[in-house]
């Protein structure tokens, strides 16, 4: 059955409540707050799998990290270091959320729950508990468990249990080998991984050691661009301030660099000479890659460790010469391994249904066996008196001295024997060979999918990967697509598109002018450096900037770009900007393109190359982003001794703190522009400025210092300070950043929707942006009714949900009246949390399933066929849980791909994959299953009819050899070839009429009715095969093997012609296999019978012809009748293909209708 687990589990961890702070630990007050990195996620109420929460978190990250200074005297950032004493501490934060973070990390971990890691002392660490070593195993089976576990896997299939019984009765071997091969490949990959080298401290120096031998507690050194062998707490790094940059692309799919910190207590130590001793007390291994709680006892001091102090396996060290850390989790206890807890084995929907019918067939089989054995009992009783001497039974054995019963133990035993024997005779009723054929067919289908040139991505040079071989046909039955947005629908490349500066809209031109690029290069030493990313610029704006001083307009533009290059947390390494937020990156690159090149950023100052003029700005203060203010600000000491406050933030938070009365027109114009930008699907930010007078600055300074030394509620106090200063701002302008959609996404989504697939996009964008992106990728259309839920209290949520329910009910009713208007549900994250907290999930789900489009929503449970597509590690659980998981293999990590069933390069490939290959695969597989059931049943029925005429003695006229060869040689190849190669409709037709996909969704190819109808036909055909020769040869000299040959040939010819009749496309291959099989059967029959003079009389030929025609008439008539008078869509599609361009020319208006129909428009 389909899973009933929720697709995405909310994490059990409750959101931290700021009010309930535990008493501060002994080592407080601490002048230096915890680095706030990572805190962004500590309040994330969801599991890491939710893109929604992650993306909203990302918005926060934008303003979050980086260098900042407590408060130096203006213009003397360097002196601050001296001021702050012996500590070389640089990394202070105003730490708006640091309290919470500190609380979280200083939370006492009870001894039972904790693991103790003795730094540099693996022996002691592993003394009490043997922690897992660092070797990993991703293969499902080991040498010892392969056989039992594989058997268990196989036994999931009902038929295999049956098969086991048959195997015991019949001693038939079986060999499921493909699983073994898959697993062998995984083992090989593991071996390579396990044998990589890490440098581990032993006897005062770092020595190479294999990854698999690394143990918890060991001190490890990792160099730049090396992967981390295990999860480790940073002790020191090459950077004097203890910063390390890691790339987490393999972990969460994000390509930007993250900053991690070593603790000040440890970063000065040189492990080789001065061994660090201490105990880390950390939580038990868990799969939360964004959280880590631990305390470190070092030199009698208790230091708290958080997510910003740990680097995880799977990451790579970047831009940092080396890091030294202590291993805390190793091997399968690492967070990355816990997250990739083996892909659950999936079973295709078709196969599940097939198992149901297999049960039905087994029932029929038992019924047949019962009939035979019961009648045999009756027959024996009726003939009881004759059997002793009857020449054909001869119960008595005269060869012994005493007359004994020969091979006869009474009627009861005889009935039981007959029953068992009849199971053996009728066993092929259950098509065991079908499972083998299905594997082969899937292999072939996968090959053709991989080879499809339309699924090849030029940019990443990657083909489609079929990672799961047993759910090909599920691709043809998808009803829901859950898509990640960033990186899946979009390219995850932020591009600065337009700016509104003091009420003037500047749109970037499409062609970057090469002349302008010369200006943004920066001289470093003797070399000219140019920003890596090209940005489209607006020529007017460039001209304006270069037009010289004086103009009021220019001043605003100047400040705007200065704000962009200053107000961020981006690191600049030779004009290669690294930061946690792609949006900030885009802004800095944009500023660079306009001539404001951020050259250098240190903790106390930045150097900006302004139009070729290098200037130094002191960063006097920094208020990082937090989710309440939704903005960040920097206080900059300019070279002209003015102090400026730059603020950047989300538009609704910024508009509140603007001094609107100062420039009413500009604010209004900017608002209009903002609306226009978000309607274009751009991510918007508003930038403001205020010049601080000396008094204001000192007031701020003192209140800031006061706040940062507060014991309780420090973050609140700091937030207050920030809010106080971030007011009465002049508006500078707004920016619009585009996260470009991937090629063909709108068309793809439109096709999917036309195909009747409900598309759910999971995104964390702002609601307006989400909606506009929805429009731009044709997810939403103007004629849809939108249900918007964005309420901020539980009650309001409940109410709006009730309204939504009412609305969806109304819509359902309208289906009966006038047809349906498509519904779109748009729900924001907060409401979603409220709904999920209040156990309104059921209601939400009801509303959501009634809608055609759901935006910004997380998935609850579903019984319908689902497909999840994503690109990052946060999509892994979604991919694993969905019926079909698709990974986008692109620039982001491999996690999604590793967890996926299919991996491809572009979102738009979903259309050919589902609509073309999915449709074909479903069509082929469903036909193959029905056909195989029919094929074996017809043979069994022929055997059955004959047994009724043999005194129920289970003798067969068809030789045992033929029984064995029947599903191996006589009829096997055509079904496999048809299963791989036949196609009902051409690619062109399927793409042109996406609605044809509905055949799979409605399970037209294979359902109980199809099965039962086929079974009725099977009985008719078997009767034709049996009774025509029977009646024709009754009262003749015919012997068993001769008439048996007619039956054998009759079955094989009929079954193959049946297939031939259902074949959609006759290629030379189909001709070869179908006719080849009949010829092969003929040869086999002659060889087996060895009476080479098989009597090919006229009667014989007439029998065969009669079998063929009589057997096929009902099916053929029904098929032609239905095809002509009640045509299926597929049939019409085939006729359309045949009719060629005629209707395309004539019925242009009709062509348009599918599009309108799918949109649900009713004018």
């Amino acid at each position, binding site marked *: 059955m389909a899973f009933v687990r929720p697709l995405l589990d909310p994490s059990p961890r409750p959101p931290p409540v700021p009010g309930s702070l535990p008493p501060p630990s002994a080592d407080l007050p601490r002048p230096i707050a915890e680095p706030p990195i990572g805190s962004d996620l500590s309040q994330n109420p969801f599991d890491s799998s939710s893109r929604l929460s992650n993306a909203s978190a990302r918005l926060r990250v934008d303003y979050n990290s980086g260098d900042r200074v407590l408060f130096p005297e203006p213009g003397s950032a360097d002196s601050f270091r001296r001021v702050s004493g012996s500590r070389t501490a640089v990394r202070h934060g105003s730490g708006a959320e640091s309290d919470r973070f500190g609380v979280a990390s200083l939370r006492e971990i009870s001894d039972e729950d904790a693991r103790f890691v003795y730094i540099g002392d693996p022996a002691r660490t592993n003394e009490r508990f043997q922690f897992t070593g660092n070797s990993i195993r991703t293969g499902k089976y080991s040498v010892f468990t392969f056989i039992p576990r594989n058997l268990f896997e196989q036994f999931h299939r009902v038929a295999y249990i049956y098969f086991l019984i048959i195997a015991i009765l019949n001693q038939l071997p079986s060999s499921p080998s493909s699983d073994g091969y898959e697993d062998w490949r995984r083992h090989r990959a593991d071996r390579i991984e396990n044998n990589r080298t890490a440098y581990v401290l032993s006897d005062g120096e770092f020595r190479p050691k294999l990854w698999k031998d690394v143990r918890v507690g060991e001190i490890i050194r990792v160099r730049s661009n090396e992967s981390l062998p295990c999860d480790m707490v940073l002790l020191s790094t090459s950077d004097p301030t203890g910063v390390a940059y890691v790339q987490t692309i393999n972990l969460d799919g994000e390509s930007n660099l993250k900053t991690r910190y070593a603790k000040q207590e440890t970063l000065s130590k040189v492990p080789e000479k001065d061994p660090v001793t201490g105990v880390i007390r950390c939580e038990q291994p868990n799969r939360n890659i964004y959280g880590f709680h631990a305390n470190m006892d070092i030199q009698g001091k208790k230091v708290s460790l958080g997510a910003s102090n740990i680097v995880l396996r799977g990451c790579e060290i970047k831009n940092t010469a080396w890091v030294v850390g202590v291993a805390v989790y190793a091997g399968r206890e690492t967070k990355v391994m816990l997250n990739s807890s083996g892909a659950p084995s999936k079973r295709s929907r078709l196969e599940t249904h097939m198992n149901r019918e297999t049960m039905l067939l087994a029932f029929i089989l038992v019924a047949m066996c019962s009939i035979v054995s019961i009648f045999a009992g009756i027959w024996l009783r009726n003939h009881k008196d004759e059997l002793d001497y009857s020449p*054909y*039974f001869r119960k*008595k054995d005269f*060869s012994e001295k005493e007359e004994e019963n020969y091979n006869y133990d009474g009627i009861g035993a005889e009935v039981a024997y007959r029953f068992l024997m009849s199971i053996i005779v009728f066993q092929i009723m259950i098509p065991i060979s079908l499972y083998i054929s299905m594997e082969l067919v899937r292999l072939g289908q996968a090959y053709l999918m991989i080879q499809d040139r339309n699924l090849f991505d030029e940019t990443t040079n990657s083909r489609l990967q079929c990672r799961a071989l047993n759910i090909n046909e599920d691709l043809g039955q998808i009803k829901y697509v859950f898509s990640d947005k960033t990186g899946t629908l979009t390219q995850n490349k932020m591009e600065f598109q337009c700016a509104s500066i003091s009420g003037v809209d500047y749109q970037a031109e499409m062609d970057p002018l090469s002349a302008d690029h010369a200006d943004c290069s920066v001289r470093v030493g003797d070399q000219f450096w140019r920003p890596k990313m090209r940005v489209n610029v607006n020529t007017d704006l460039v001209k304006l900037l270069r037009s010289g001083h004086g103009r009021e307009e220019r001043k605003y533009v100047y400040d705007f770009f200065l704000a962009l290059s200053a107000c961020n947390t981006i690191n600049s390494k030779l004009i290669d900007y690294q930061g946690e937020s792609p949006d900030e990156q885009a802004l800095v690159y944009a500023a660079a393109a306009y001539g404001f090149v951020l050259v250098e950023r240190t903790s106390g100052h930045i150097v900006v190359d302004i139009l070729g003029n290098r200037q130094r700005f002191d960063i006097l203060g920094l208020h990082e982003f937090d989710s309440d203010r939704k903005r960040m600000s920097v206080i900059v000491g300019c070279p002209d001794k003015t102090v400026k406050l730059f603020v950047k933030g989300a538009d609704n938070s910024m508009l509140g703190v603007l001094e609107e009365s100062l420039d009413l027109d500009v604010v209004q114009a900017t608002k209009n522009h903002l609306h226009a930008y978000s309607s274009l699907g751009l991510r918007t930010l508003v930038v403001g400025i205020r010049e601080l007078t000396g008094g204001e600055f000192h007031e701020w300074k003192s209140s800031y210092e006061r706040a940062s030394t507060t014991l309780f509620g420090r973050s609140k106090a700091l937030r207050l300070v920030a809010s106080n200063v971030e007011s009465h701002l002049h508006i500078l302008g707004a920016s619009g950043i585009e996260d470009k959609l991937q090629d063909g996404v709108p068309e793809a989504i439109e096709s999917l929707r036309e195909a009747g697939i409900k598309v759910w996009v999971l995104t964390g964008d702002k609601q307006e942006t989400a909606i506009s992106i929805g429009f731009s990728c044709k997810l939403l259309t103007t004629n849809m009714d939108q249900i918007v839920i964005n309420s901020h209290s539980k009650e309001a949520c409940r109410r709006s949900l009730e309204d939504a329910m009412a609305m969806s009910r109304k819509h359902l009713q309208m289906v009966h009246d006038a047809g349906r208007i498509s519904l779109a549900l748009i729900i924001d994250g907060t409401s979603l949390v409220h709904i999920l907290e209040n156990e309104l999930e059921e209601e939400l789900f009801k509303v959501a399933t009634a809608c055609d489009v759901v935006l910004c929503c997380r998935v609850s449970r579903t019984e319908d066929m689902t497909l999840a597509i994503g690109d990052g590690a946060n999509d892994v659980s979604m991919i694993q849980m969905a019926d079909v998981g698709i990974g986008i293999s692109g620039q982001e990590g491999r996690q999604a791909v590793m967890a996926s069933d299919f991996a491809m390069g572009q979102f738009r490939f979903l259309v050919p994959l589902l609509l073309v290959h999915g449709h074909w695969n479903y069509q082929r597989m469903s036909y193959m299953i029905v056909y195989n059931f029919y094929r074996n049943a017809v043979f069994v029925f022929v055997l059955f009819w004959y047994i009724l005429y043999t005194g129920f*003695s289970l003798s067969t006229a068809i030789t045992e050899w033929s029984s064995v060869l029947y599903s191996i040689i006589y009829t096997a190849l055509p079904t496999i070839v048809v299963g791989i190669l036949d196609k009902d409709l051409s690619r062109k037709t399927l793409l042109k*009429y996406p609605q044809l996909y509905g055949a799979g969704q409605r399970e037209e190819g294979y359902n109980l009715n199809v099965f039962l109808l086929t079974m009725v036909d099977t009985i008719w055909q078997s009767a034709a095969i049996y009774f025509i020769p029977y009646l024709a040869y009754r009262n*003749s000299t015919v012997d*068993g093997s001769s008439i048996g040959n007619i039956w054998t040939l009759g079955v094989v010819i009929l079954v193959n012609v049946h297939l031939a009749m259902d074949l959609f496309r006759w290629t030379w291959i189909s001709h070869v296999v179908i006719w080849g099989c009949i010829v092969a059967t003929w040869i086999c029959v002659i060889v087996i019978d060895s009476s080479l003079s098989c009597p090919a009389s006229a*009667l014989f030929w007439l029998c065969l012809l009669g079998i063929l025609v009589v057997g096929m008439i009902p099916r053929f008539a029904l098929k032609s009748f239905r095809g002509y008078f009640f045509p299926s869509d597929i049939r019409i599609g085939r006729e359309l293909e045949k009719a060629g361009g005629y209707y395309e020319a004539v019925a242009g208006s009709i062509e348009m209708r599918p599009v309108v129909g799918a949109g649900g428009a009713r004018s």
Partner: protein
Amino acid sequence: MDSPSPARRHSKKPKYSKFTQQELPACKPILSPGWVITTFAFIGLIFIPVGLASLFASQKVVEIVDRYDVACVPEHLQDDKLAYIQNSTEDKTCTRKLKVPRLMRSPIFIYYELENFYQNHRRYVKSRSDKQLRGKEGEGDTESCSPEAKTSNGSVIVPCGLIAWSMFNDTYGFSINSKVLDVNKKDIAWNSDKYHKFGSDVYPKNFQSGPLIGLSEQEDLIVWMRTAALPTFRKLYGKIEVDLEPNEEIMVTIHNNYNTYSFGGKKRLVLSTTSWIGGKNDFLGMAYLTFGGLSLLIAATFILIHLIRPRSLGDPSYLSWNKNPVGYSN
């Protein structure tokens, strides 16, 4: 980071071939009304003449069937036929008179027909040793033959098995007006059996008294050993190679040795001519006529409905979502 790959990697783009792109040239037959009507009409037009021909051929066959198992038991033993047949002192000779209804052209085949004799019973079919029958070296191979494998003193039985030991042993003699008709009992078995399955060096030592003849010469045994498919069957006894005139009376002298009374079997003597369709059997002709007629009927129905409710092929307006633009999703 999307730095352009330093060395242009080898492109993994799949090579184009019609096979891998699933574009093999193909014939795409559609069951259009034209095709359907033609097919059914064609079937009808073939089947009806064939049916008529085979019916005609079957009618031309002259067949004389005479059940004698009851009639050959003397009146006083009718109540206990088993005692009669088991009594070796009883004279088993019996005379039957058969009248030739129509001219019977030579060769006239003589069959015996047994009814309710399960020669296809599993116990029975298995009880033989092909190896023993094939040649001298297989003589000892009697495992499959039980319960007729070995004599009570342990020597092997040749030929072994229930089949051989239940061989039909009634004999027929024919005469017209006291003139004996020769019965040719040669070439009644299949050549493949005679030459490949039964050895000339295998002698039925437990089976016959007098001079032993190799099995391959014993055609009546070979015929018997080719077990019948159905519980009512005929086996070829011999051939009469002269024409029989209408209304002639044939005297048949039967040695009624074979015990069918123990299991309620029936015995018949059959004299029959043949045609290209074989013996007398109207079934195939009738079946061909029936289904030929049915096909024509279907063809006619199709034409009729096609005229009443025509549909132009490949009209997109018949697509379900065009017929019912809003309801397709369910």
